[in-house]
């Protein structure tokens, strides 16, 4: 019961924050709101807990409750005030208040649509049952995230030797803490560190990601195409049956994929519509992406770079008109200033990839490139048991019209994964580990981060090709 209450609180905080960010002028569709609320709420609460801990306040149940109650109350008041002002505005404009658009359910679902919804439902049932049926068993889920969560929950703070003593055994000491803090919050709200309850976080991210992809598709396409595509996305084996990184495993890769998708789609929407509410949401998701996993920082930089390039080259915007992008990206990073300051105090046990990325190291690692490229080809094309036909479909579309792939309206959704792969290749050129042991195991999870964007790009391009 406690865990359901905790998840409901997360959803409520996210929902109210997004409504506040959307402001008066913008319409948030209900599907979009549902898809973004859980991730936003989870991230905001984790960030709030981190700020408390950074200020030296113990993360005990009372303080956690106050943390939720304070902003929740404030957001409810803000919501009421905004609603009244908006009502007055509409009354004076003699227009009716905007309704929250939903999936158009005005006519009954066809057999294909029912089947698609059933597939999505079945996938969700499989993932939830899988998560609830056993404790945390995957390696990273216990060794990295679970350990941090236990320390945060039982020691109620971040200034303890488990984090700060370099001789204390601690895997990936400097990894960001969104996931462990969220786990600690769920444990705190549910009255104990119960692993199945904590594991519920990850299927919730999976459902949110499916809804997010569905929301983007339903905005652009007819209901049948959107539902069919959504079901194909939900049934990607890498999410449903992959033991070390899938939606039930307790790894942070799916949440990271969710935040990157949320950020990229907000910025894509900004390119399309130019509304500032998308940038406010992007600022939030940029911060949360960085706070989820180390790769988040690289992903945020890539997403903003790709968006700026798309704005300039594809949408024909002047360079100066892109300044809000820079402000948004910087804003997201500034929100995380306490984390960066704290992270600088943490012991460096593992390699610092950024420092290794030097021209001489890159040149020295070039002999690894054939192996890396072979592994990438294998990952994209020869693992249908993980990726279905995602790689093949993307390649067919690029092959069909290379110019379109580079210059179409949707190309930013493809540029981000391509740039990310380039950065990953560069890192694996300089990494001082035995590549054969590390690369094949890590690659699937790394590819997961941008796979929703590749999927969205395929859907947009296919529909665009069909309609033209």
């Amino acid at each position, binding site marked *: 019961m406690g865990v359901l209450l905790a998840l409901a609180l997360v959803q409520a905080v996210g929902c109210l924050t997004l409504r506040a960010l959307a402001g008066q002028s913008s319409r948030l569709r209900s599907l979009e709101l549902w898809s973004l609320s859980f991730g936003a709420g989870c991230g905001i609460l984790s960030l709030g807990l981190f700020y408390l801990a950074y200020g030296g306040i113990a993360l005990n149940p009372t303080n956690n409750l106050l943390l939720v109650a304070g902003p929740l109350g404030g957001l409810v008041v803000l919501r009421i005030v905004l609603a009244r002002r908006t009502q007055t505005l509409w009354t004076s404009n003699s227009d009716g208040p905007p309704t929250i658009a939903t999936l158009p359910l005005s006519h009954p679902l*066809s057999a294909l649509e029912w089947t698609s919804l059933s597939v999505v439902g079945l996938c969700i049932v499989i993932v939830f049952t899988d998560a609830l049926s056993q404790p945390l068993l995957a390696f990273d889920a216990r060794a990295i995230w679970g350990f941090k969560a236990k320390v945060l929950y039982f020691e109620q703070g971040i200034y303890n030797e488990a984090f700060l003593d370099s001789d204390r055994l601690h895997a990936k000491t400097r990894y960001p803490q969104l996931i462990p803090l969220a786990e600690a919050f769920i444990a705190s709200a549910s009255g104990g560190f119960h692993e199945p309850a904590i594991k519920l976080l990850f299927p919730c991210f999976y459902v949110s990601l499916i809804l997010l992809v569905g929301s983007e598709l339903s905005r652009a396409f007819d209901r049948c195409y959107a539902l069919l595509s959504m079901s194909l996305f939900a049934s990607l084996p890498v999410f*449903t049956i992959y033991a070390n990184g899938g939606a039930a495993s307790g790894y942070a890769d799916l949440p990271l994929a969710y935040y990157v998708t949320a950020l990229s789609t907000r910025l894509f929407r900004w390119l399309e519509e130019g509304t500032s509410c998308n940038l406010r949401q992007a600022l939030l998701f940029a911060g949360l992406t960085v706070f989820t996993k180390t790769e988040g920082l690289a992903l945020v930089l890539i997403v903003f770079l790709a968006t700026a390039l798309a704005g300039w080259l594809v949408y024909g915007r002047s360079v100066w008109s892109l300044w809000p992008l820079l402000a948004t990206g910087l804003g997201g990073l500034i929100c995380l200033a306490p984390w960066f300051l704290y992270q600088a105090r943490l012991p460096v046990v593992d390699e610092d990839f950024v420092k290794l990325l030097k021209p001489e190291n890159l040149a020295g690692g070039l002999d690894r490139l054939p192996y890396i490229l072979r592994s990438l080809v294998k990952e994209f094309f020869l693992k249908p048991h993980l990726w279905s036909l995602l790689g093949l*479909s993307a390649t067919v579309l690029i092959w069909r019209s290379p110019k379109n792939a580079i210059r179409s309206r949707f190309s930013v959704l493809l540029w981000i994964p391509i740039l990310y792969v380039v950065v990953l290749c560069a890192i694996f050129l300089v990494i001082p580990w035995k590549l054969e042991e590390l690369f094949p195991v890590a690659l699937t999870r790394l590819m997961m981060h941008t796979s929703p964007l590749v999927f969205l790009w395929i859907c947009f391009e296919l529909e665009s090709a069909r309609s033209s």
Partner: protein
Amino acid sequence: MVRANFALMLGGACVCGGMLIAAGFALSGSDFSWLAVLVGQAGSPNPQLLDKLRLVPTLIVVTGVQLLLGGAVLLFPCCRSVALADRVPQLAGLQFRARLLLGGWTAIAVLSMNFGAITLVNRLQRNWGLSPSELIAADFGDDYRVVRAVRETTPETAALLIKTQRPLQFLLNYELYPRKFYFYPERHLPISSIPEAWMDQHRIGWILEISDTEPLQFQLAPRKASF
């Protein structure tokens, strides 16, 4: 014409379904280590993956049965009635290549969902009645000896020096919390050479040494008795 198409699809579904059922039965009990090499992330078979792959014949049979049932329930009525055949949603406008891709996606989606459901049911059956701690013990396998020994020998407040390169150390760190595990920065230094001052500083009371080579051997001893 529409009915003829559906009749052709029904025939295809029946033949494929029958072949899958036959293949599933033929493969039952086979060695799937070659498949583990193909689909495994590390490129080599591991016991957990092999355990899952034993369910492949069941997956093939279940998919074959679904194909037959799907044909009987969805396609057979369409072969008999023009009205029904016309009501079946057509993905009009999709080119042949797009249809082919969609077909491939659908086939893999069906297979992966079936596999997910079968492995889940199999695991639930096998784990029925086991407590979470028993599930964790089963997951550790033989390595659980270390967990049991540390848990039964040391108090929860213990500080242990751990010496091993095995990734197991991080799982012990999680599983045996709030016990504190420390490692000496120069990992290759013999325990006897580790300065006493460093040990005292971290209040090390126990020493856990785990072999880096197979088979796993370990030694757990109180600090003063050992040194």
